[in-house]
């Protein structure tokens, strides 16, 4: 169902993808300056390579979203139209993810959301985000 290349761990992100497979949204915390980032070889703020993997809150808000109508990939032919977003996690990093449990009319920038890890295809995991009522941004 999901084409090749959808999940492509590299050195910096292998722990991130292993976390997803275990149902966790892990992010990096810099041991030197405390900054959070999704996955990198160095801290984007201080270039330290002392990076620890920590459990992210999995909570954040919709920084922006789109409604995909065109089928760019046959694997998504039965899914269109669907909502996808750039989600900003509470800790700061942003990531691309599908939105679930919200209609196009309800979706809005700033909407509080929380992550659920889903298995898109055998061995391919991704976070999706659903609205979180009453959460502050």
């Amino acid at each position, binding site marked *: 169902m999901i084409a090749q*290349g959808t999940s492509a761990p590299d050195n910096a992100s292998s722990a991130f993808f292993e976390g997803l497979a275990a149902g966790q949204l892990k992010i990096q915390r810099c041991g030197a300056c405390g900054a959070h980032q999704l*996955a990198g070889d160095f801290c984007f703020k201080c270039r330290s390579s002392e990076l620890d993997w920590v459990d992210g809150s999995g909570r954040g808000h919709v920084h922006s979203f789109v409604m995909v109508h065109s089928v*760019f*990939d046959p694997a998504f032919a039965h899914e269109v139209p669907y909502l996808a977003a750039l989600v900003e996690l509470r800790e700061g990093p942003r990531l*691309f993810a599908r939105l679930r449990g919200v209609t196009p009319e309800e979706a809005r920038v700033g909407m509080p959301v929380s992550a659920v890890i889903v298995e898109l295809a055998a061995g391919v995991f991704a976070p999706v985000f659903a609205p979180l009522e009453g959460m502050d941004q």
Partner: protein
Amino acid sequence: MLNAAIAGLGMIGLSRVPGATARLLAARAVLAGLEDAGLDVSDLDGLLVCRSGGASEAELGLNLQRTLALPNLSLLQVGYAEGASSIALIQVAALAVSSGMARVVACVFADAPLAAGQTARDAFSRRKPANGVDSLRYAAGLFGGASLYALAARRYMHLYGASSEHFGAVAIAARAWATMNPLAVFRQPLTMEEYLASRLIVAPFRLYDCAMPVNGAIAVIVTAAERAADLKKPPIHILGMGQAHPGIPDQKGFERGLCVAGRAAKETALRMAGIELADIDICQFYDAFTYSTIASLEAYGFCAAGEGKDFVAGGAIGPGGTLPVNTGGGHLSGYYLQGMTPVSEAIVQARGEGGARQCGKHEIVLATNDGGRFDHHACLVLSHTRRSRR
């Protein structure tokens, strides 16, 4: 000190009908550029090649030297900065001819995304490789440039109250210019009703918010000002140039989609050219999507943040407007040859060869390129007059 001028322009293909390969198109464009300048292949001592992100070295690369059997190269490379590749390479050519490292440099971009039996969507569905967390975009169903720029457009709508009609105004202005460009792919006038009735691709983007692929090639011949002055066509001088690459991850507090890259490149280019923003007569922006034009106007400071939408809605960028923008129809209605589209139309206007669409004031023309998701930016300030007005 910069001493570089564009002496030749070669344009080949620009067609939605599949035909020659990218390498053959590139070779023909280089020859056409030399012909336009009144130069011979034996004069060429520099070749700078760029290609689309989805294309391979085998399709178009260093092999172009052998295709054309160029014997005299002292400068040869393939360059890549995503959509900013074309201007980035012209900048290298300008530095090379200014320093004397090369004397006549061809910069060429070619693309042949359309194969027989393929749709535009097929062409744009070719995935760019994405590794690590960047590959999450595909799991999220965000394919092509349209989805990423639509995210930026939605963010802009949220921050400044922009509507579909604002994006429509950009599409209509581009089409109005294209009706006067014989090389434009889409030349039928476009109305707001037609724009609003067009199908959604990745909302908020509709069909007319997105450029369509073409097969073609454009080559630009760069040489020193003195040499260019003796050639067939009037020289178009490179007065200034700049780049910017905000290479930080998408994080809280960073508004990537608001075209922050353009701002830093502008400062460098205007300072080098010795001009002010108000001296620019015409803009050729990288408008693969309607929103890009609005973002560029604001990044360069032609409008304050959030005011670009009203600027375009008021007709300022179309024919007869106060700031002519994308006067050949841009990517949207002209032809989508990535970074070379703004460059080619800037040369045409600066030379005064625009025919029915020629702008009266065309002394200083700005051309810009954007690559990635507002990751890379490059610009040129061009003029038919070597010295600036100040």
